């Protein structure tokens, strides 16, 4: 198995708080991997580091053979890493189509000159990005909503649109931060199908954070468990389910301790 992403010994401090320490994780190419752990374990912090919003104090991140720690987010999008956010962040006052079209930003080479004089390059690029965006929307099953403003979408579609946008960036590695938070069982199932199809049909590698264990266990091939800023377990879903450290982190100690954390 080839690794698309290799995080090794990453650590980050916020003042006196060691949010992550010695975190290592590999993501296999064309796989769905998951990152789980109790609240406050540092999952989103790790996502922020991988996607360039935070620079780690120590450690290395290698993406497709290239060291990427400390690169700004827009550069990482350019080289193929795209993410969604825990609390869905859409461009509220833009239409669904514009939201997706923006995903093609990096690939479009039109300059100010091309825009003002509406050159052939501009026309071709706009036409292509619009068609591509419509295709992505078709794939996500929301092509009918293309002219709706993002803020008017129902919650489930907002989440979907965010995912559609990451596809549009042409990313080879997609980071999904709690994609099915706040969804009901049916919606979760539909989203699971969509994510699987992104992985299988579009050949994208996916790393996701999720609290819904059934969702994670069904979908992902490998799971990494974080707790209090450290990796406490790594492996296939079945191994993780039976790992005593994981059970302890999620449910508390069985003997003597009495500490519980959800």
């Amino acid at each position, binding site marked *: 198995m080839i690794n698309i992403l290799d995080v090794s010994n990453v650590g980050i401090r916020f003042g006196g708080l060691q949010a992550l320490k010695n975190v290592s994780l590999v993501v296999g190419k064309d796989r769905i991997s998951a990152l789980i752990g109790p609240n406050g374990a540092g999952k989103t912090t790790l996502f922020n580091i991988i996607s360039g919003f935070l620079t780690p104090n120590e450690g290395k991140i290698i993406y497709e053979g290239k060291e990427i720690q400390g690169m700004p987010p*827009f550069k990482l999008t350019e080289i193929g890493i795209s993410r969604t956010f825990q609390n869905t*962040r859409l461009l509220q006052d833009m239409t669904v189509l514009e939201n997706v079209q923006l*995903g093609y930003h990096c690939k479009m080479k039109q300059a100010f000159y091309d825009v003002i004089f509406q050159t052939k390059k501009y026309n071709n690029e706009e036409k292509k990005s619009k068609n591509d965006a419509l295709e992505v929307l078709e794939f996500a099953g929301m092509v009918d909503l293309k002219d709706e403003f993002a803020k008017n979408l129902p919650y489930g579609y907002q989440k979907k649109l965010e995912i559609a946008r990451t596809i549009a960036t042409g990313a080879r590695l997609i980071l999904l931060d709690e994609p099915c938070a706040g969804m009901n069982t049916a919606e979760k199932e539909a989203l699971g199908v969509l994510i699987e199809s992104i992985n299988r049909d579009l050949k994208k590698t996916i790393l996701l954070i999720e609290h819904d264990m059934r969702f994670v266990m069904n979908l992902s091939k490998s799971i990494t468990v974080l707790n209090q800023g450290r990796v406490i377990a790594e492996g296939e879903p079945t191994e993780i389910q039976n790992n005593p450290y994981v059970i302890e982190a999620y449910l508390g100690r069985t003997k003597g301790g009495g500490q519980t954390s959800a």
Partner: protein
Amino acid sequence: MKNLLCKNPIVLMAILWIVVPIFIHSNYFIHIMFMTTIYAILASSLNIAVGITGLPNLSHATFFGIGAYVAAIGSLNFNLPFYVTLFIGGFIAMVFGVILGIPTLRLKGFYLALVTIGFGQVIRIVELNWMSVTNGPMGLPGISGAVIGSYELSPKAFIYYGFVILLIVSIITKRLLKSKIGRALMAIKNDEVVANALGVDVTKFKVFAFIISSFFAGMAGTVYAHYVTFVSPDSFTAADSTTVLCMVILGGMGTILGPVIGAIVLTIAPEALRFADLYRVVFIGMVMVVSIIFKECNCAEVIISKTKNLFSRQSNRDEVSLHD
């Protein structure tokens, strides 16, 4: 034809600007029309920074003033004709835009607004005190008018001259909105973090918005300087910057026609309300408050949707997007 009018705010604007000056003869009205044109350029160019990109700039009149001073100095000291000062004025205002832009664009919202106010004050104090260049509070009189060969532009011709620039700003805005650049700017206004995550180099595009915005303000400044033939620091105060911002907000941020409508209303209203003396300020203040309360339905959108209903037979209840 009717469809063209509704769909294309620029055509509507062009008709207004070409037809109205034909029917006005009094110098007073010509002056008001000219000032409307200048304010429309200022509001439309400020709209690119504030309305589309969401960068609160409270020193737009300062860039306007820089353009005007460049025209004055160029014309008085170097005998440059108006079509040369036009570009130099725009360019130097743009340079100041970059100077202000690059270090401050990491700031957001109120903080950026505060810095721009400060910047406006600094430039004003320079204008007031750099006697050898700006002649301080006395200003620079005797700027040449706009002369091409033996023909000198009449005040009426100045309206058309200004309108050409307004037209260019509007067309640029319109084309930007439908491009990669426009989407990036709108994304920055909506959510910088997302823009960044989608591959937009946020700082670069913010500086770009500042550059375009200040360039056209500078150009408007040169037109103004050659028209009134006199510049002084009093013409470019923080109050003027606020007025321009009010025009953008009143008309509708991020739209093409909105800032122009805002400029028309807020230039003509104070003149039309002259009989009410000081009360007109109160009245205009009230208009601003009401327009902010109802900011969801900004002027431009309301007017466009109403006219659309007038023109089309079946009532159209769709929300009209001026982005098209």
